[in-house]
């Protein structure tokens, strides 16, 4: 029977946030790329919350942008409200979050994709991955990707595949006793690929997540809610967006609360919740629990916050953040209507839980390539993570590394001291993962170094090396680094004498007057002062852009802490740089404990540092490995 047969360099399966970044990276790096989606209308869709960023997720977007990803630019074009979270706290935890116009976000990303050279968009369900044996592989079970086949039978040959299937594999949407075998928003599920993955030796998990109802704006009484406005001065996500271009009129979100009555209704209907009746088998994320979960787990809490957020400028749909649920439709109506402002609410779309197949990410290298199938990469919710931002950064890294493989270049692996992206991927591939993984700032050991404000200084050079950052952007970062250093040195060297101007200034700022001369740097370090406020004592100050001034201030103010973390990071890097052999059988290392042998064989860590983070591998095992490596080196 005749069928379609085409050849590409790289195939990307899925067009969500991971798929988009993967496809863009691959095509921009010069490879003929085809991106499959079950529906072209759902490219870069935001099926859950209407925002990008937030605590630690904002960091991910910034890092992605510094490396040459698209998400930051796209949200800058399509946001309708923006806020810097945690502004009263330290610079390491400042985090940007923007409300998106969902439709606009999708449309704008689609436009970018459609206008990218070498990128083909194809609406089709991929039902099989095609692999072959590698003739000379050390491990006989290791295979190599050769292409994908769609449900219609079309074959696409390619040298690398990025799987970014999100929540679509054998997905099921559930509320009450309703169970629809579809993806989000009634989109077609991908029901065939799982079998092909299993046949290729890939282990699958079943995870679950959920989303709250969308309601009609006209049915809400906002007078009973608190208005939440955006920041007065808006900071863009992307380092290449002109800050002046994003200062625009913003929409408001609204805050209201659940109450005892809401909780009573929920408790009375728990037996009808598929979460508690056992109808849902997948494991859900603890950080975004359903409202019934919260009521059961925190019985002492008298009320829970509900943020009512617009889904866009051209729709009346509003998102009820904090009210995710899988309770039956009638219970949803009843519980929502107990909430102040929602007494007469009309539901446009029900809340539901969604269950889907994803992989145990332990099967991946930190490059996001499968250990046992060469050329097969994956990213996003398929890898057991959760969140648009988590998905986007993985998709990007998978796309970049797929491209680098074809370029014959070494894969890019960011480590835990370089980026949140490094923390995220390292956690996924070295730790036991039992729930959809979400980024959190507490997961980053070196978070004082991994600030959202310095993502460009950390990662632009790597983006340039990859080939997704322009010469001009690269040069700017080099200049910026130098400008920061120069200014810090100037402040360290500039001494102020004791005189009336200085004392008067200190008095005005409630700062201790001087007894003897002091450097400007010392003054910046005082809690009540900062770099900008000291400008009047500093007539020789050069004209510097905002982003340089911010860095000078932070680096001086938190110098002690930053230094300490830098030292720790240096130590950490030493272990990270000790490579371990690929596809290695650890039972060859005598004296390793059995548990360590099993775990190391299973995870196949890239280096000693990664090995040391695998649970079940002890410091003594690491010593044994080091001695073994040295022994190998010398023989």
């Amino acid at each position, binding site marked *: 029977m005749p069928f379609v047969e085409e050849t590409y360099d790289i195939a990307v399966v899925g067009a969500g946030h991971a798929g988009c970044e993967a496809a863009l990276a691959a095509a921009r790096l010069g490879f003929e790329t085809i991106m499959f989606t079950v529906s072209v209308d759902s490219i870069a869709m935001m099926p859950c919350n209407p925002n990008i960023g937030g605590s630690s997720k904002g960091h991910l977007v910034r890092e992605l942008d510094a490396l040459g990803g698209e998400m930051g630019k796209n949200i800058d074009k399509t946001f309708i409200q923006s806020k810097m979270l945690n502004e009263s706290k*330290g610079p390491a935890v400042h985090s940007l979050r923007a409300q998106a116009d969902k439709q606009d976000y999708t449309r704008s990303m689609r436009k970018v994709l459609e206008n990218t050279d070498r990128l083909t968009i194809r609406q089709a369900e991929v039902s099989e991955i095609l692999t072959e044996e590698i003739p000379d592989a050390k491990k006989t079970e290791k295979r190599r990707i050769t292409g994908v086949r769609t449900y219609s039978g079309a074959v696409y040959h390619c040298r690398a595949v990025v799987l970014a299937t999100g929540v679509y594999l054998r997905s099921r949407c559930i509320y009450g006793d309703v169970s629809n075998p579809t993806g989000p928003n009634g989109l077609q599920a991908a029901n065939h690929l799982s079998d092909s993955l299993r046949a290729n030796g890939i282990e699958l998990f079943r995870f679950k997540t959920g989303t709250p109802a969308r309601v009609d704006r006209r049915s809400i009484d906002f007078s009973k809610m608190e208005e939440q406005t955006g920041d007065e001065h808006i900071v863009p996500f992307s380092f290449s967006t002109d800050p002046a271009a994003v200062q625009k009129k913003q929409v408001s979100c609204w805050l209201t609360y659940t109450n005892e009555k809401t909780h009573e209704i929920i408790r009375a209907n728990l037996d009808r919740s598929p979460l508690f009746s056992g109808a849902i088998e997948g494991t859900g994320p603890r950080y975004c629990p359903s409202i019934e979960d919260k009521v059961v787990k925190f019985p002492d809490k008298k009320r829970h916050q509900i943020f009512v957020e617009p889904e866009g400028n051209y729709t009346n749909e509003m998102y009820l953040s*904090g009210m995710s649920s899988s309770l039956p439709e009638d219970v949803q109506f009843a519980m929502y209507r107990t909430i102040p402002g929602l007494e007469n609410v009309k539901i446009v779309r029900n809340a539901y839980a969604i269950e889907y197949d994803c992989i145990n990410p332990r099967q991946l290298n930190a490059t996001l390539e499968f250990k046992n199938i060469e050329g097969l990469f994956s990213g996003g919710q398929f890898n057991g993570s959760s969140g648009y931002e988590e998905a986007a950064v993985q998709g990007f890294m998978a796309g970049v590394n797929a491209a680098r493989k074809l370029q014959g270049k070494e894969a890019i692996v960011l480590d835990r001291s370089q980026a949140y992206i490094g923390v995220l991927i390292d956690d996924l591939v070295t730790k036991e993962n039992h729930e959809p993984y979400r980024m959190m700032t507490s997961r980053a050991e070196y978070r004082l170094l991994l600030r959202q404000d310095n993502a460009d200084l950390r990662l632009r050079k790597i983006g340039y090396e990859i080939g997704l950052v322009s010469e001009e952007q690269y040069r700017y970062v080099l200049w910026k680094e130098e400008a920061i250093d120069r200014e810090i040195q100037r402040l360290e060297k500039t001494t102020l004498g004791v005189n009336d101007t200085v004392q008067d200034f200190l008095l005005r700022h409630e700062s201790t007057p001087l007894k003897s001369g002091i450097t400007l740097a010392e003054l910046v370090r005082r809690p009540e002062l900062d770099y900008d406020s000291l400008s009047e004592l500093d007539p020789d100050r050069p004209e510097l852009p905002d982003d340089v001034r911010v860095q000078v201030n932070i680096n001086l103010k938190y110098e002690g802490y930053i230094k300490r973390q830098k030292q720790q990071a240096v130590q950490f890097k030493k272990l990270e740089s000790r490579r371990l052999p690929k596809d290695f059988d650890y039972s060859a290392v005598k004296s390793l404990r059995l548990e360590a042998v099993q775990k190391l064989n299973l995870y196949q860590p890239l280096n000693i540092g990664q090995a040391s983070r695998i649970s079940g591998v002890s410091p003594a095992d690491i010593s044994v490995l080091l*001695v073994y490596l040295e022994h190998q080196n010398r023989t």
Partner: protein
Amino acid sequence: MNQTDTIAAIATAAGNSGIGIVRVSGEEAISVVSRIFRPGKPDGRRDHEIKENVLLTAESHTIHYGFLFDGDEPIDEVLVMVMRKPKSFTAEDTVEIDCHGGMLVTRRILEAVLKAGARLAEPGEFTKRAFLNGRIDLSQAEAVIDLINAKNDYALKSSVGQLRGSLSKKIRNLRERILYEIAYIESALDDPEHISLEGYPERLLKTICGMEKELSDLIRSSKNGRVVAEGIKTVIIGKPNAGKSSLMNVLVGDERAIVTDIAGTTRDILEERISLEGISLNIVDTAGIHNTEDKVEQIGVSRALEAASGADLIIYVVDASISLDENDFRIMEFIKDKKAVVLLNKSDLEQTVSPDEIFRLSGHRAISVSAKEETGIDELEKRIRSMFYDGEIDFNDQILITSVRHANALREAHESILMVRDSIENGMPEDFFSIDLMNAYEKLGLIIGESVEDDLVNEIFSRFCMGK
């Protein structure tokens, strides 16, 4: 696990002769020791500057006489040998401090070195470094691995086993409270719209001051040697009326012995610590081993033997004035292959049991004593000392190291807590508190053998209601 930082450990087996050596190796070895070493007499007239730097400029393989200090207080008169890389055992800069020996002094010197910036070496780490730096022959690689494994097994076993129940409880409790605070801060950072830190620094300051006090109490008691039961575990067994208790009283009452009460003594097992010239014994007096006619008392025998089986040293007291019975045979069979001292008590009465008979049955040479007349006690002490110094009882170096490790971890946890206090008082943002809180949490975990893993994330989710 870092391969080039500066490590330190006691290089001599504890109790081994009159000299103790503390070895320091790594990039900073020389500058670490120079921070606490003053050449010449402590009140000598030398210029301060020179004193600070004499080691820094010292040539390789030179020996320097002087005093080692803990702050302003001299610890001991020492000889310091400086070996520059690569001409040392580890092929790194190495300093060896020879002191006058005795566990306490050597331990204090090690502690001072740690305070000055070194890290306590992992078991077998010097040898490992020597190997990794090419100083040890390839053929010995396996031996190195075995050494690491053997030492680690022992260290692990002894580390937690040595903690007194009340201490590990205290540390667990402290850790729980620290973790709660970190989780609170972190959940507020992750979800600022749900969890507020309004007024939190003031609350935390109070909590921190309480923790600071608890930690300094723990440190103080660790200096008195109370934190870790670091002595040789010695169990006294014998039938009732054999004279165990009076023997214990003699040992305890001996003016050469220092007695420490140990809390948590159970009803039928009495525990005391004595120290014989720097060797510390934890003496456990088991309930008497009764004759076998009574079922209940049979259990007594088993229980006493059970207690004795975990001991480093067994003191078996025999009433020499009455004939041996089945219980004695059972005990002697039991101690045959163990470190034990047999005492023939009541030498003041007519003897029916002879040392030869004991030797035949147990393989141990008996000592005749009279607890009543306090005769033969000197010989008992001499025997224990020589067993210890000859290395026959060889458990102590790890035990000692463990106690140093614990004390060091307590000190570091305390420092971290003080830094949290400073951060609060300096008005630093809240996310800085959790950095040092986490440090304290990790350090305390070292003591009870628990690592961090996913504690924090679990705590956040179980305690605080998060999320969209």
